[in-house]
């Protein structure tokens, strides 16, 4: 039974969704694209002036990213970066950082 509902869910997600679900390291890999500025696993260098993302609750990060995308939150660069990722990708990234210490 369980197996059938999982398959059905995958079918609903469509091809892109299936690819996402099939890759267990996708969240980790996507979050690593942010590490150049926000630090490895979101642990930014202290005192370097860019916010850490490690351990920040997922909904908080997602809200900020949505506000960057919409332009509600003023930014020097994050509005341009956030628009490069799909909402599904940002969801995975925010979840990954929330789970980091």
């Amino acid at each position, binding site marked *: 039974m369980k197996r059938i509902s999982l398959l059905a869910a995958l079918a609903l997600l469509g091809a*892109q969704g299936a*690819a*996402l679900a*099939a*890759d*267990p*390291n*996708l969240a*980790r*890999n*996507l979050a*690593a*694209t942010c*590490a*150049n*500025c*926000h*630090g*490895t*696993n979101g642990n*930014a*260098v202290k005192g*370097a*002036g*860019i916010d850490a993302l490690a351990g920040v609750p997922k909904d908080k990060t997602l809200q900020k990213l949505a506000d960057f995308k919409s332009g509600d939150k003023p930014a*020097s*660069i994050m509005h*341009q*970066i*956030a*628009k*490069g*990722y799909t909402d599904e*990708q940002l969801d995975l990234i925010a979840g990954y950082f929330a789970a980091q210490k």
Partner: protein
Amino acid sequence: MMLMKRRDFLKVGAAAGTMASLYGCAGGGKASGHVVVVGGGYGGATAAKYIRMWSEGGVQVTLIERNPTFISCPISNLVIGGSKTMEDITVSYEGLKNKWGVRVVQDEVVAVDAAKRTISLAKGGSMSYDRLVLSPGIDFMFGEIPALDNADAQAKILHAWKAGPQTVALRKQLEEMKDGGVYALSIPKAPYRCPPGPYERACLVADYFKKNKPKSKVVILDANEDVMSKKGLFTKAWSDLYKGILEYRPNSEVKDVDVANTTAILEFDKFKADVLNVIPPHRAGNIAAKSGLKLINNRWVDVDWLSMEVVGTPGVHVLGDAIFPAPTMPKSGHMANQHAKLASAAILNMLSGEAPSPTPVVMNTCYSYVDTKQAIHVTSVHQYDTATKTMQPVKGAGGVSAARNEMEGKIAMGWAKNIWADMLA
């Protein structure tokens, strides 16, 4: 014979034990084997760390680097301008060794045998690998500027396009130049390493002249038909900050030099400078061609974007400035770091018998200073496209700074500190 000694593996393994508990991550830890990384710059150092981190110490990593410390190209223009020192752009490899258990070998790779999966070292001996990561950066095509094709000429007419002794030497030439002198900077045709870098350098030298040698001039001799990066922001900085000091000349390819007279020879013209700084055309680091890797235009390595594996050479992955770039993708340190993460993830999958991720993403940011305090950026995000089998820039994303500003001058240093730590700490 100097094949990897078992003793060294064991030493490295002990460091890995403590590491896994500190930096453990779900889904990793299955891969094993030996990865040799050649070149400890933005690409190679990142790959060495991330392979150790993501495999939870399961994969042994040897990093082969000819220099004793990492010296950053980004920020080095501030050393040339005089507001930063070499110390500010130098980071040790101790973090990779002690925290991540990477075996760091100071040596140079002279040959790769991709069929046998071995490399040979300049100091003698060889080493075997399961996967090889080459992050060789660039080497100059001095033959394109015939009079520069010897060591004496190269000591006088500098490129300073690899950070290190040339950075120090160019700074010295600028300090020794008389007030009223001319500094000329020649830019090769694109693609070249760090598209905004030459324009940043021109700004920072002009800033130094403005404050210290106000009768002096900066002339950019650009082989390209226009400013290659952040054009609006750079030209505004030139007219607002450096009017009468900095002159930009497009379509001015330097074909040769007259070394004794520090003169650049163009197609129809000559240009005499007091300090002549020529960035020659360049190509993938020499080891790429020497290893028989497939080059595009006889210059850049052709890679598979799902893994950074070289087309036609299984087991060898190439990162950074050495590759033939995807559309609109710049040759930058930031991008090399992203290539390294893509390759690290793919290598760990491949070492576990799995296919690489089918949906990789990379992104770039280049900050440039227009004076010692104000900076500007350009950024882009690139997603893998299955139809074209390459990375495509995301439309509607990315862009440049609204205007030069001091806040981004601070963020640019924050970027440097974070990316250096992301590679090396």
